[in-house]
């Protein structure tokens, strides 16, 4: 079936990607990151970044408001848990639909402008949503206390089939609770599906049209394409990805707060994408994992760990080295991340994936072209 077709190269990338994601509990162990809460975040924010890249990487439209769709996804999923059922499938489906509609409205207005004006418009809409969640919309969002499950939730579908248990219920998939590693594997499978869809978009004529819009919008319209619906579709798709990520956050922890929609969260996904490599399939995933790793692990390093790490340094210098290094970990993790970001943007404008490509080029036999035929010289005329 055409739906499942991938080129041989893409199929190989897909297989490797799936393998890396499924074996995450193994390879994260040496980094001390192999607990399910963090691995779930790795999977969820990778989905967020992949979706963001469908818009930013392909069309070049830089949205500074994508966290709004993440937040909408979370709220929708928690409401689905509260009103209908603790099963995750309806929660995810509703979250994708609602965030998609939300993206349609914001995208329709924002895409009337391009460049920095587009970015500012999306930022304005997201901050508006964030502030509304704290003020006017508190009946829906529960304001600062966050939207949570309560013992009195109606849960119409669940309670039609069974008794209300003691304590708060947990999210489940067809009756199997998704706690710990099961929760991670659920998110991992969704990530793999999300990656597959992104691969299909990147390789498709639709993806090529989006790249062409980024390259030259004037040529696109004189070539017979109505560019606005193309950009809007990309915006809605990336909004749906964000909504999916938001729903998964609610699956792993059924609670939705407005801080998920704040501009810092929107900025974070921009950083993830640029750090990893804009417009590449794998880059945003690597960026998401790096940033979440820094945020969760690097930030917990203390002087004790550093002291052991620098144990090989002789005594008089040891304390100085530890004192200097300590500024870059723990609460100073953002300093390290910031420096890393600056270094990548200055020396590898294409992100970490550009670094990977450069290293790969070093190992390739000289004279072998990067793409077959690309370096073939033109015959003399």
């Amino acid at each position, binding site marked *: 079936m055409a*739906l499942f077709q991938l080129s041989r190269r893409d199929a190989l990338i897909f297989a490797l990607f799936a393998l890396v994601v499924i074996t995450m509990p193994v390879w994260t162990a040496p980094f001390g990151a192999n607990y399910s809460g963090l691995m779930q975040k790795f999977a969820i924010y990778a989905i967020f970044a992949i979706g963001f890249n469908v818009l930013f990487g392909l069309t070049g439209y830089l949205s500074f408001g994508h966290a709004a769709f993440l937040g909408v996804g979370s709220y929708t999923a928690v409401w689905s848990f509260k009103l209908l059922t603790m099963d995750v499938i309806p929660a995810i489906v509703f979250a994708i639909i609602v965030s998609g509609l939300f993206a349609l409205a914001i995208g329709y207005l924002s895409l009337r402008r391009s460049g920095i004006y587009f970015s500012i418009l999306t930022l304005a809409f997201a901050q508006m949503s964030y502030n509304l969640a704290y003020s006017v919309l508190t009946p829906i969002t529960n304001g600062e206390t966050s939207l949570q499950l309560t013992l009195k939730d109606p849960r119409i579908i669940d309670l039609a089939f069974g008794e209300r248990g003691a304590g708060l219920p947990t999210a489940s998939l067809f009756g199997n609770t998704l706690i710990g590693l099961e929760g991670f594997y659920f998110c991992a499978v969704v990530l793999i599906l999300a990656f597959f869809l992104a691969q299909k978009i990147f390789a*498709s004529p639709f*993806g090529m*049209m989006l790249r062409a819009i980024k390259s030259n919008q004037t040529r696109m319209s004189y*070539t017979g394409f109505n*560019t606005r619906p193309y950009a809007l579709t990309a915006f809605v798709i990336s909004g749906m990805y964000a909504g999916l990520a938001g729903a998964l956050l609610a699956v792993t922890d059924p609670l939705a707060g407005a801080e998920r929609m704040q501009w810092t969260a929107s900025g974070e996904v921009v950083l993830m994408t640029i750090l990893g490599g804009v417009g590449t399939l794998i880059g945003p995933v690597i960026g998401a994992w790096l940033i979440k790793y820094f945020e969760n692990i690097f930030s917990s390093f203390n002087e004790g760990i550093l002291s052991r790490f620098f144990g090989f340094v002789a005594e008089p210098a040891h304390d100085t080295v530890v004192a200097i290094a300590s500024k870059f970990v723990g609460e100073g993790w953002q300093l390290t991340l910031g420096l890393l970001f600056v270094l990548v943007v200055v020396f590898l404008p294409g992100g970490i994936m550009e670094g990977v490509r450069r290293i790969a080029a070093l190992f390739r036999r000289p004279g072998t072209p990067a793409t077959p035929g690309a370096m073939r010289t033109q015959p003399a005329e």
Partner: protein
Amino acid sequence: MTASERNVVLHVDDVSKNFGGLHALSDIDLEVAEGETHAIIGPNGAGKSTLLNVIIGRLAPTRGAVVFDGEVLTGRKPYQINQMGVARVFQTPEIFSDLTVLQNVMTPAFARRDGAFKINILKPVEREAEIRDEAEAILEDVGLAPRRLSHAGALSRGDKRRMELAMCLIQHPRLLLLDEPTAGMSRHDTNTTIDLLKKIKARGMTKVIIEHDMHVVFSLADKISVLSGGRIIAEGLPDDIRGNEKVQEAYLGGAHRLEAH
């Protein structure tokens, strides 16, 4: 042949265009028959590019209308005009610099096949064999086949023009507008392009061409309109134009004779 015998496909009907107080075009009347190659010549600033921009929908005329095959083009969006079968080569090549040469030429074929908008994610681009084969054949025609996997942005200016021409040709437009298609090309490349345009003509494609190079104009044109100061001062067969005193006066200040090199 008189106009009534010919099948007129493009009719520029009494078009004027003002920019503030500047009359860029005044009362332009132009008829282009099916299959004809119609050249528009004139000194710099005569309004040639403005006229082309009005036809393609980039500029709205102050007065008058452009009619293509019985349908009014004026007021339509550029993509709608293209979907009606009008394609254009720009004076400064408008291409997709970030895509490969092959992708540049394949993209317009999708507009022709799938229309102005279609979400098509099922089949990868590389499995679109029909469009790919046609793009490769056209690249062969314009002499860019060996560079089909290069980045379009890395091409020389002359190659970009030939690629842009290929991007128009793959759409099989009924009317092709060419804004100085050989500017910046070597003599050899110019001759290749002339041969190519002659070949297209044999397929019956209607063309409007703006060109400075008289060698190109006299090799290709069936009919020539001379534009000066926003007005058409002469119109006729190449031989008539060549000998027209008024044209020589306006075009070259009377200093030189208009000649095919």
